C-alpha cells in the first residue's frame, strides 16, 4: 500500500519523504500517510503532547491546572482557550512549578509537593491536574506517586497527566493523556454509584465563545438537558456526574472518541457523533439526537426548531452565497472534525475547497474528507508553511480558514483568513454561528483591501 502512490503530488517544494502525506483527490490510489512523526528539521505546524492534553482539560473551570516544569511551558499556554465559564475563572490561571536548573539536577518532586500544598491552602480547589512536561519525563519525577499521596493528604483529586512533550509530536497522544485523566476523575469511588438520568453528556465541546450554551438552549427547547460537557464550562463536581448520562454526544472526534468508547465500556452509555458547525450539520445533529430519544414530542419540537431557525438563517446564507460563489478556499486546522465541518460550511456558501489538511487526522478521517471534497482537491497531513504557501498560490486561493500560525502566512500572500483556532472568542456553532461564520468569510474574502493589494500604482508605473 505504501508505495502505490501512482501520481505523487508535485514534489518541487518538499522532500520525498513528505510526498506520501500529500494527495490529490481523484489522482492518488493509495491512502494518505498521516499520524506519522514529523520530519526532523520540519517547520511543522504541529505542537506537542502537553499542548494536546492542556487544550482538552483546560476548560474544566474550577480545577487548578498545575504545569510541572520550567516556566516556559506554563507561560506559553496561559489562558490559551476561548472557553467561557459561567462560574469559576480559576482555569484561566497557569500555575507552574517553575523548575530551575537546580531542580532539574536534583529532581522536582519536593517542589511539586510544596506547590500542591500551597495551592490547596490558598485556593481550596476541588481538583488539581498536574501536567508532566518534557524535563519532568526525562528526569523521572514520579508524579503519579506524588499526586496519589497529595490526594490522600488533602482529600481532593490530584490527577497526574502524563504529557511529556517528547512522547510524540502529535497532539492526539496528549488528547489520550487528557482522556485518561478525565476517566480517572469521574470514576466513582468503590461502592459509590451514579444514578442514571435522561440527560446527556456533550463530549468534545469546549464552550468557545459560549458555543456550549448555544447548543444547550437548542436542547432545552426540544426537552433535553445536558448533564455535563467535556470539558467546556464544566466543573469537577459536574464531571463526576458524567456516568449518570443516558447518551454521550461526541463532537470533536479527535479528542473524545476514545473517551466515549471507554465510557460505553465502563458505564454502558452509548454515543453518537454530532457536529454543530454549519446550519445543515446542526439540523442533522439535532435530528439524530431526537431519534435516539425516540420521543414523539421531542421529535416534533426538534422539527419546529429546525424549521424556524432554517427560515431565519437561509436568506442570510443565500445573500452571502451570492457574493462568495465560486471563490476558492483552503483549510488547514488541527483536527479532522473541524476540517470536515468547515468544508461543509464553505460548500454551503458556494465556495470551492481547493486544499485542505490537518495536523492530527487519522486515515479514516482523510477517507471521509476525500468523499466530500471535489476532484482535484489537495489533501495534506502535517503540512509545513512551504507546502501551504505553494498550494495557496498554485490553487489561486481567495480565503483560508486555519489557526494562528497560518493567519499571517495567508495575509502575507494576500489571501483572506478566518480564524477557526481553539482560542477564538466568538462562537461559530449552531445556526447563529453559521451566520457569523458566513459573515466572517465574506468580510475577509471580499474586503476592499485586496483591491489595493492588486492595484499598486507604483508597480504598474514601472511596468
Amino acid at each position: 500500500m505504501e508505495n502505490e502512490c501512482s501520481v505523487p503530488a508535485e514534489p518541487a517544494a518538499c522532500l520525498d519523504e513528505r510526498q506520501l502525506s500529500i494527495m490529490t483527490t481523484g489522482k492518488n490510489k493509495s491512502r494518505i500517510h498521516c499520524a506519522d512523526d514529523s520530519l526532523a528539521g520540519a517547520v511543522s505546524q504541529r505542537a506537542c503532547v502537553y499542548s494536546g492534553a492542556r487544550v482538552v482539560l483546560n476548560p474544566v473551570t474550577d480545577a487548578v491546572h498545575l504545569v510541572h516544569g520550567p516556566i516556559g511551558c506554563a507561560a506559553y499556554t496561559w489562558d490559551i482557550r476561548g472557553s467561557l465559564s459561567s462560574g469559576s475563572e480559576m482555569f484561566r490561571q497557569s500555575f507552574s512549578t517553575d523548575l530551575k536548573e537546580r531542580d532539574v539536577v536534583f529532581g522536582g518532586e519536593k517542589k511539586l509537593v510544596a506547590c500542591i500544598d500551597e495551592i490547596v491552602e490558598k485556593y481550596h480547589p476541588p481538583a488539581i491536574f498536574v501536567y508532566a512536561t518534557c524535563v519532568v519525563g526525562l528526569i523521572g519525577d514520579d508524579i503519579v506517586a506524588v499526586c496519589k499521596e497529595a490526594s490522600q493528604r488533602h482529600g481532593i483529586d490530584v490527577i497526574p497527566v502524563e504529557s511529556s512533550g517528547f512522547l510524540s509530536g502529535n497532539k492526539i497522544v496528549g488528547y489520550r493523556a487528557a482522556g485518561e485523566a478525565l476517566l480517572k476523575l469521574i470514576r466513582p469511588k468503590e461502592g459509590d454509584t451514579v444514578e442514571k438520568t435522561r440527560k446527556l453528556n456533550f463530549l468534545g465541546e469546549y464552550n468557545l465563545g459560549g458555543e456550549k450554551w448555544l447548543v444547550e438552549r437548542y436542547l432545552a427547547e426540544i426537552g433535553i438537558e445536558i448533564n455535563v460537557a467535556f470539558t467546556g464550562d464544566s466543573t469537577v463536581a459536574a464531571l463526576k456526574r458524567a456516568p449518570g448520562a443516558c447518551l454521550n454526544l461526541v463532537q470533536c472526534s479527535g479528542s473524545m472518541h476514545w473517551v466515549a468508547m471507554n465510557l460505553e465500556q465502563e458505564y454502558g452509555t452509548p454515543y453518537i457523533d454530532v457536529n454543530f458547525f454549519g446550519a445543515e450539520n446542526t439540523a442533522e445533529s439535532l435530528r439524530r439526537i431526537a431519534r435516539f430519544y425516540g420521543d414523539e414530542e421531542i421529535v416534533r419540537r426538534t422539527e419546529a426548531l429546525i424549521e424556524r431557525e432554517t427560515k431565519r438563517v437561509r436568506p442570510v446564507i443565500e445573500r452571502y452565497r451570492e457574493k462568495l460563489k465560486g471563490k476558492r478556499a483552503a483549510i488547514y486546522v488541527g483536527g479532522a472534525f473541524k476540517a470536515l465541518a468547515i468544508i461543509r460550511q464553505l460548500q454551503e456558501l458556494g465556495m470551492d475547497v481547493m486544499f485542505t489538511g490537518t495536523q492530527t487526522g487519522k486515515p479514516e478521517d482523510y477517507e471521509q474528507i476525500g468523499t466530500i471534497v471535489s476532484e482535484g482537491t489537495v489533501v495534506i497531513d502535517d503540512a509545513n508553511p512551504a507546502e501551504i504557501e505553494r498550494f495557496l498560490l498554485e490553487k489561486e486561493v481567495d480565503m483560508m480558514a486555519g489557526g494562528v500560525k497560518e493567519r499571517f502566512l495567508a495575509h502575507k500572500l494576500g489571501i483572506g483568513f478566518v480564524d477557526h483556532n481553539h482560542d477564538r472568542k466568538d462562537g461559530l456553532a449552531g445556526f447563529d454561528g453559521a451566520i457569523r461564520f458566513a459573515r466572517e468569510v465574506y468580510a475577509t474574502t471580499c474586503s476592499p483591501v485586496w483591491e489595493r493589494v492588486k492595484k499598486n500604482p507604483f508597480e504598474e508605473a514601472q511596468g
Partner: protein
Amino acid sequence: MYAALGIHGCLPHSHGSQGCCSYHRMALSRHFHEPAMASTSSFTEGASVFGGAANLKTSIKNVFAIYNPEIIAVHTTCLSETIGDDIPTIIKQSEIPEGRYVIHANTPSYYGSHITGFSNMCRGIVSYLAESNGNPKKEQANIFPGFLNPGDMREIKRIVTEMGVPSIMYPDTTNVMDSPLLSTYEMYPRGGARIEDIKDSGNSKMTLSLGAWSSDEAAAILQSKCGVPGVPLKIPIGIKATDDLIMAVKDGFGVDVPESLNVERGQVIDTLIDTHFQYEGKKVAVFGDPDIAIPLTEFLITMGMVPKYVLTGTPGNKFEKTINEMLEDAGIEGSRVKAEGDLFDLHQWIKEESVDLLIGNTHGKYIARAEDIPLVRVGFPVFDRAVHPLMPITGYRGCLRLIEMISNALLERRDRDCTDEDYELIL
C-alpha cells in the same frame, strides 16, 4: 528565536520537542502579526533516550535541502539541555553546504527569562560570525539594539544615520517582523542583518550596546574577540537615554549633532511643557523586561510621574539597584522595586495601594480590569493590539508617542469618570 530572526536569510531551529517551537512561533506571530518561521528537531521518545544528535544532524540536512536558508540558528530547549546534547560538536559533525552557516545558543527555560535567551543568541552570533581583519578600525558603529520592536530598531538606526555615522545593527528585525505586503512573498524577508555585515562588525570602531541584560554580554565578547570597545548604554527610551546615545556617537566619532535631532529634542521638551499638568504626580506601575523598564522609569520621572511599583520577571540584582538609585535621586519615596517578580506580586501591591496607571505588556490587562486602572501597552508581548511593532517608543519620536499614549489614557479615564459639569471640550 526572535534574535535569530534578526539575521537575514536565517531559519531559527528549535532543538527539542515540537511544542516549544510551535509556542514560540505562535507568541511571535501574535505580537508582530507576521509569520514567524522556525524549524524543530521534532524530538520523540527515542531521541530523548539516545540523545538528540541524530535529530539535529538530520534537521540541518533537511532544512538546507528544503528551506535553503543562508544560516541556521539553533537554540536549545529544556529537553535537549537536560539530555546534555553537545551542540557545537554536533554542528561540527554535520553536513553544511559551502558558504552556509550553523550557529547556536543554549536557551533552556529553567535558566533566566526570554531576555536571557535573546542575549545568549546575540552572544552566539558574535562568537560564530564576527571577525576582525586586523586592519585599523573603520569609522562605523555596531548597534546591539536589545529585545525591541522593529519600529524601535528602525528609529535607532535612523538617529545614528542622521549623525552621519555608518552602522551595523544586529539583531535587526526591521523588514522581517514588520515586513510590507508586496506583490510577492518571500520566506526570508528582505530585512535582517547581512552575514557579511555581521562579520565586518569585528572591524568597527565601537559597539553601542543597548541594554545591560540583552546586549552587554555580546558586546563584551566582541571586545575580547575583535578588540571593538563596547559602550554600555540604556535602550534610548526617554530624553536622557536618547541624549546619552547621541552623545556617545558624537564623542566616539567626533561628529556634530545635526540640527534636525536638536529640533526633535526641542519638540519633546515643548510637548512635555504643554502637557505636564495632565500626568504630573500620577502614580504609575511599570512592569516588563529590565532593559525597557529602566529607561522607561527614568522617563516617567522626567515627566513628573511617580513610579510607585517597578517590576521585572527577569532575574538580576542590578535592576533593583539601578531603579532605586533613580528614585532616590528624584527624591521619590515609598516605591517598591522587584526583579524576578511576577504579576501576582504586582497585583497584591496594587490591592494594598492602588496606582493611576499601569504600563507594561498585555498580561497586565487582567489587573487593569480587576482594579479598574488604565493600561498603556509597552514591551513584549502585546497580543491584543496591532500596529505597535511598527511604532517606536525609542528616540525623541518615541518620547512623543509615550507622552501621547500616557496622557490619552489618563484623559480618557477622566472623561469617562467625570460628572456632566466637568465634561469639557477643551482639556
